């Protein structure tokens, strides 16, 4: 008889890393589908390229660092998918591939791997591409242009302004709020449909993969600042357009909630969300580019551990309740 002797607890819950990653992928599916519906099959092809390059990156870094096989933990899949959602459907395939590799190999793998990286891999990948190929990432196919798969690098796509471009002018975009909510507007593959993103976010909340703290603090801060400092005539309209255009919902629900790069303490999470919101609005108002979500989250990523360090939850037996 061979009895196993190891530490308690001897039973474990059903949650696994794989299951959580699968949930994240499921939650992202509506946004990808909306991207394909509104921008054509090429959006799906970009996602395939990003995922494939992310998996290739994961496999190769495992080989080099002689780590156990992490290809199937689902983390690289989610990173690739997230990256794709932050790119325009017109992005050249090789640019998408470079982004996927950089995200997984450099931003995640070389910074410690799963759970240890400081910066969000997908956003790190996107920031890298912004540096190398700014034109590919800031030009979007005009609304209604459906890209075919064969266009390897559709340099000559008709460029259309996104709602955020208008808001930088500043002016309210032509698109109606309902268009923005559903996804009938220019933008990156995964950011156009607020409805699809919120459906995915609802799924993550229901599955208890994420808590509402970071997205609520993030979106709440953006809303509050837009109300306080509107550039349009109506503060409420300006707030609504600020929330629905650009990548702020994608960022708040799926990027800022990334486990490895966000704080774990409840108070720290709220402060982190508020920080993301403030920086997003500041970058949108003052930056060169209309959008500021990527850099807002990346900067807050760097503060995540610090926030956890100083905003420690009040433990049992430490508060006033400890008195008789």
């Amino acid at each position, binding site marked *: *008889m061979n009895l196993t002797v190891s530490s*308690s607890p001897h039973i474990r819950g059903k*949650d696994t*890393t794989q299951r959580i990653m699968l949930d994240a992928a499921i939650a992202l599916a509506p946004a990808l589908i909306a991207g394909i519906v509104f921008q054509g099959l090429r959006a799906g092809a970009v996602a395939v390229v990003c995922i494939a390059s992310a998996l290739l990156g994961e496999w190769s870094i495992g080989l080099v660092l002689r780590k156990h096989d992490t290809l199937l*933990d689902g983390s690289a899949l989610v990173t690739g998918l997230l990256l794709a959602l932050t790119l325009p459907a017109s992005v050249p395939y090789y640019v998408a591939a470079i982004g996927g590799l950089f995200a997984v190999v450099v931003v995640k793998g070389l910074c410690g791997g799963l*759970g240890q990286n400081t910066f969000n891999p997908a956003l790190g990948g996107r920031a890298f591409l912004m540096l190398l190929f700014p034109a590919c990432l800031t030009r979007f196919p005009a609304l209604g242009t459906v890209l075919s798969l064969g266009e390897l690098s559709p340099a000559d796509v008709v460029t259309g302004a996104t709602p955020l471009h208008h808001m930088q002018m500043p002016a309210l975009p032509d698109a109606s709020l309902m268009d923005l909510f559903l996804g009938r507007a220019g933008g990156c593959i995964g950011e156009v449909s607020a409805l699809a993103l919120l459906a995915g976010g609802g799924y993550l909340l229901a599955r208890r993969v994420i808590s509402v703290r970071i997205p609520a603090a993030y979106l709440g801060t953006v809303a509050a600042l837009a109300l306080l400092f509107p550039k349009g005539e109506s503060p409420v309209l300006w707030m609504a357009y600020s929330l629905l255009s650009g990548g702020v919902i994608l960022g708040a629900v799926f990027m800022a909630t990334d486990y490895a790069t966000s704080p774990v303490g409840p108070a720290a999470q709220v402060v982190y969300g508020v920080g993301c919101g403030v920086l997003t609005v500041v970058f949108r108002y003052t930056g060169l580019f209309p959008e500021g979500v990527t850099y807002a989250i990346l900067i807050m990523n760097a503060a995540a551990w610090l926030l956890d360090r100083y905003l420690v939850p009040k*433990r*049992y037996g430490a508060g006033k309740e*400890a008195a008789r």
Partner: protein
Amino acid sequence: MKSLFFGGVHPAGRKELSAAVPLSAMALPAQAAVLLRQHIGAPCEPLVTVGDTVCVGQKIADGGGLCVPIHAPVSGVVDAIEDRPHPGGGVCPAIIIKNDFLDTPAPTMKPYSHPERSTPTELLSIIHEAGIVGMGGAAFPSDVKAKTGMRQTDTLILNACECEPYITADDVLLRTRTSDVLQGLAVLSHVLGPDRTVIAVEDNKAEAAALLREHLADFPGVELKVLPTRYPQGAEKQLIQAVAGRQVPSGGLPRDVGCAVFNVATAAAVYRAVYEGTPAIERVVTVTGEGVKQPRNLIVRTGTSFLEVIAAAGGLTDDVWKVLSGGPMMGVAQRDLSVPVTKSTNAIVCLSNAQNGEAPHPTCIRCGKCLEVCPMRLEPLYLHRYSGAGDLDALDRLHLMDCIECGCCAYACPGKLPLVESFRRGKRALKEGVK
């Protein structure tokens, strides 16, 4: 119903494996290995030598300081005094008694003449002499707990939560010997003189709760509190929070917040000591799990080997994975099944391979589930990190010593980190002050 303490988890109870099996007495063992360390505090010294004849219930070991005596669980001859494996880990000196199967009672085993008119001091002395310890697993000498709680306790809690999965020992005891438990509680109440006496039971034990409610007519002033089932509600600090809404200060004791908590089996042992004159020589042990053929609730004399108890439950299955002293959340995995039952062995849980949820490459993904479930509101993921790094300052700053090792964090961890193991290592390092 809302949870009344912080965090916690809700594993599958699996109590159905043994809950319906009636309590039965196990056949006496041919040999009893009486460990000299069966309580928290100073170990006992033997009062007998090899070759001595002993009676059942005869005091055979005792000591000074924080210590309660140990009694012979069977009658017979002392065969040896030697080191034996301890279910808590390591080895410990034990008095080995060869059973003569006569079950000759010691002359000291007689009921106390006037329990109703006894003073608290007299009752404390009976509890001490009977060698009673916290039988829920903690094994703290009960007389010391009661004595230090005198005049400081406004809330006396009988812990009938039995929140560990699989175990049904307290449940069965409550259903079979309801009035014994309540009379034992009345003795403790008489000693402590609290304003409130509360029986705390979880709502997965409806039958026990109903029986208690019936019997409470005879015990005016005793409250029954049915709590929503959630692990680790039966942990002392969490139960105090759930019942009294108070938090034991960090590094403090229940009496610091006016509370005293006693387990069901402890109350039953107090009853038997006071009303029947029987010291702590037997207890209810649940032998259960998917790894044992016929789960049972057995009355077992201390010193009986796990092997014999398991045999009385039909033996192990072929796919047995672990044999635990205690429950699956906090129990200790056994290597050598010759270990004997002690005063605080409430269960022998045998798990099969299907329960193996360990992972070959545990990895923290910083999901924060461990924080959500920690009943002490600590930050397990950081404790794990700093424990691995040997950063004692950080471990101290994050109050590793407040960890109750309940295992909720590791249970909830999707990366399957061995968190409790790492905390034990960190605590050892903190105690030794090694960098």
